[in-house]
């Protein structure tokens, strides 16, 4: 651990550092994991493309793409990426040296995510896990069921415009893909801030179905589904849409007070992270004897590890909070 973030001394690189460094290995392109300004980054090709789409081609000195499963020597260690199931390109970093294997999960989910390669379990000695939803109250239901709730509400209130608050990377595309999987083939209207990444997902082979900007002069949005960043949902932007029914889509929606605080009328529990069962199952399945916990409710997960006879310690990483853009 260093102030800049998680550091691998034998390899001479940081993983997801919060300030610009010489050499960074990046798990995925969310803002709390991938900051601009590094001299060189190593990431999956998809993460590299998304990061450059978000921050500009000049944001990093050198971007090196390493596909899932390919090993590369970095300093004194071997590095490879394993799919994390979180967003397109998201990876766990697998580091090996002298028969010892460490896995840094980044953000991950074991739930269904039609927009990216599913999580791959990598047995290891040291597992660095996220714990965004690291409390046993989090039990995320299926994507299919939550999408069905949204469609039922659209059918029940055809005079209203359902506006779903989503982040630009990951959540927007997962909901689009979920709608398509449920057979919804109408045009989905999207906020301008979501367009570029949706287009990029399609270029990278993830079909998202018919979309149109929600900013055109089209007057009547009754009965339609609109995707917009959470900030725009409760702001002036949404007024043009008429009688808006605000929809939340995040793991936080499981807790009423949280959902109400965000003033949604329809809370959908759609999370791109693991719920409690997913976290504890993954830790068990990796067989790791040592676990470091980052990103959220470390205390509960460390306590659980202790009851299972697993050594666990919290890693307090700066710049990570629940307002990161990937919940």
């Amino acid at each position, binding site marked *: 651990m260093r102030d800049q973030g998680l550091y691998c001394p034998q390899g001479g690189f940081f993983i997801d550092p919060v300030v610009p460094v010489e050499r960074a290995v990046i798990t995925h392109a969310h803002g709390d994991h991938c900051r601009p300004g590094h001299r060189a980054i190593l990431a999956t090709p998809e993460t590299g493309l998304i990061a450059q789409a978000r921050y500009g081609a000049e944001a990093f000195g050198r971007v090196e793409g390493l596909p899932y499963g390919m090993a590369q020597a970095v300093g004194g260690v071997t590095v490879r990426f394993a799919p994390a199931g979180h967003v397109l390109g998201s990876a766990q970093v697998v580091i090996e040296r002298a028969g010892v294997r460490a896995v840094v999960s980044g953000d991950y989910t074991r739930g269904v995510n039609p927009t990216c390669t599913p999580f791959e379990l990598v047995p290891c000695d040291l597992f660095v896990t996220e714990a965004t939803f690291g409390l046993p109250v989090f039990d995320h239901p299926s994507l299919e069921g939550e999408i069905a709730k949204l469609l039922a509400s659209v059918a029940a209130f055809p005079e209203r415009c359902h506006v779903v608050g989503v982040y630009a990377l990951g959540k927007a595309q997962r909901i689009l893909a979920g709608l398509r999987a449920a057979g919804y083939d109408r045009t989905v209207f999207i906020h301008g801030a979501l367009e570029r990444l949706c287009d990029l997902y399609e270029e990278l082979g993830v079909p998202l179905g018919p979309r149109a900007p929600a900013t055109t002069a089209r007057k009547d949005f009754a009965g339609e589904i609109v995707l917009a960043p959470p900030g725009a949902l409760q702001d002036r932007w949404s007024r043009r849409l008429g009688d808006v029914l605000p929809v939340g889509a995040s793991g936080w929606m499981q*807790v009423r*007070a949280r*959902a109400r605080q965000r003033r949604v009328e329809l809370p959908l529990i759609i999370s791109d992270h693991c719920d409690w069962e997913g976290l504890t199952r993954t830790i068990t399945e990796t067989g790791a004897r040592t676990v470091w916990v980052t990103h959220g409710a470390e205390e509960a997960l460390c306590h659980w590890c202790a009851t299972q006879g697993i050594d666990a310690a919290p890693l307090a990483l700066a710049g990570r909070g629940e307002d990161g853009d990937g919940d």
Partner: protein
Amino acid sequence: MTPFAHLLETLAFTPGRNAKLAHLQHFFAQTPDPDRGWALAALAGTLDLPHVTSSVIRALVEERVDPVLFRLSYDYVGDLAETVALLWPGKGNGTPPTLDEVVGSLRMAGRTDRAAVLAQLLERLDGSGRYALIKLCTGGMRVGVSTRLVQTALAGPDHPLEDITEMWFGLEPPYLPLFAWLDGGARPDLDLSLAFRPVMLATPLDEARLADMVPAQFVAEWKWDGIRVQAVATPEGRRLYTRTGEDISAAFPDVIDRMDWHACLDGELLVRAGADVAPFADLQKRLNRKRVTAKMMAERPAMIRVYDILEEDGEDLRPLPLETRQARLAAWVGRVRPGGVDLSAPIAFDDWAELSALRAGARDDALEGLMLKRRDAPYVAGRPVGPWFKWKRDPLEADCVLMYAQRGHGKRSSYYSDYTFGAWVDGPEGRRLLPVGKAYSGFTDEELVRLDKWVRANFTERFGPVRGVRPGLVLEVVFDAVQASPRHKSGLAMRFPRIRRIRWDKPIEEAATVADIRALI
């Protein structure tokens, strides 16, 4: 239980009244008896279940969940019922119980096996069902639904709301005869002697109409600044209702104890301070208490100032003209000499000018204005236009400066529509503003758009959801009264403040001082 749990969930996230009504109507139409009746009781607060304490529930969950994980989860979620609902292992085994089964088994359980019965029920429910069940047992549903709103959801063209409120007190959960009637069956046969009679309400007087009104056809009375109540006493019992039919007997035992007569009276509930009527805030204090202490009753005794009689010894007087009812009332008061009750005497007047002068001269705080009532009008439920008018005192007003704004709810959630405004005080560092009130209404939609724009352009700091704004906009605020209040920094509390005009033109230096407003007390 599952449909009821879903209803609670939906209601909790539905801010609009009409949308809430639609959800309730859908539920009552889809859910069979007796579950819909138990649900109605739960929402209206009439479901009497043995109370389960939070420590019992806590103990149940700690038998099943690691206590450290429970504590961390509870800290995070903040609500016991929700924490337990989410933490309880399993997703519901077997058939979920019906609401009827839940009510039946909880009522049958003794003190010793209540916890075990509850645990068995929780086992068979999913998360939202568990949440609903725990809320049922511990009380505090908090879904923003009043008795009136559920009753409104039941009403329809053939089943008027007045009829439902009238029969409400003769009915008991699970309300089978009520639902049978709503479904087209026979009207329930009830003893309504102690029931609330839907009240007759007045419309605001349009002064331009006075010219066409014949003074001799009207009775004038003072409009007292208390709360409208209906006091019913029969050999079966005694009740004190608000004008919406809420039973407030428990908060006013000093009134109930002295109702040793048989009648139904309509009047104003007031509290006294010595020989005078105490300020409305004192009445409010008593109203808010579930249990009233002897000290409160001694310091602020309650009384009823009556102006109408709806029933006397079992005789329904409502069809009689007001003039006759008032004569009967005066005679009744003279004969019975009821304790804690006095007569709101009619005001003698010859023409509107005379009455108008009386109204303008009324300085007593306990007076809200005047009532004008047609002498020949029977007592009818609702708000018919014509027989009764309220002629309120002109509101007080002050020019105040906008200080903070907050977003509204529902349709207004994207607008800064709740405004806190202040008045000037002189301090050691010069003049500054102190908040004196808060208003949400009185402006048009177009004005709201303009106000919202102004707030966004002038916002300076953020306190959670509240935005501080640069002092720069004067609001002309009107209010019904202002009282001294040690709870507020300014030492003032306004009653029903609303915005009358937005003074885009007025310099803020010309706004009122706190002292100006205090002078209106």
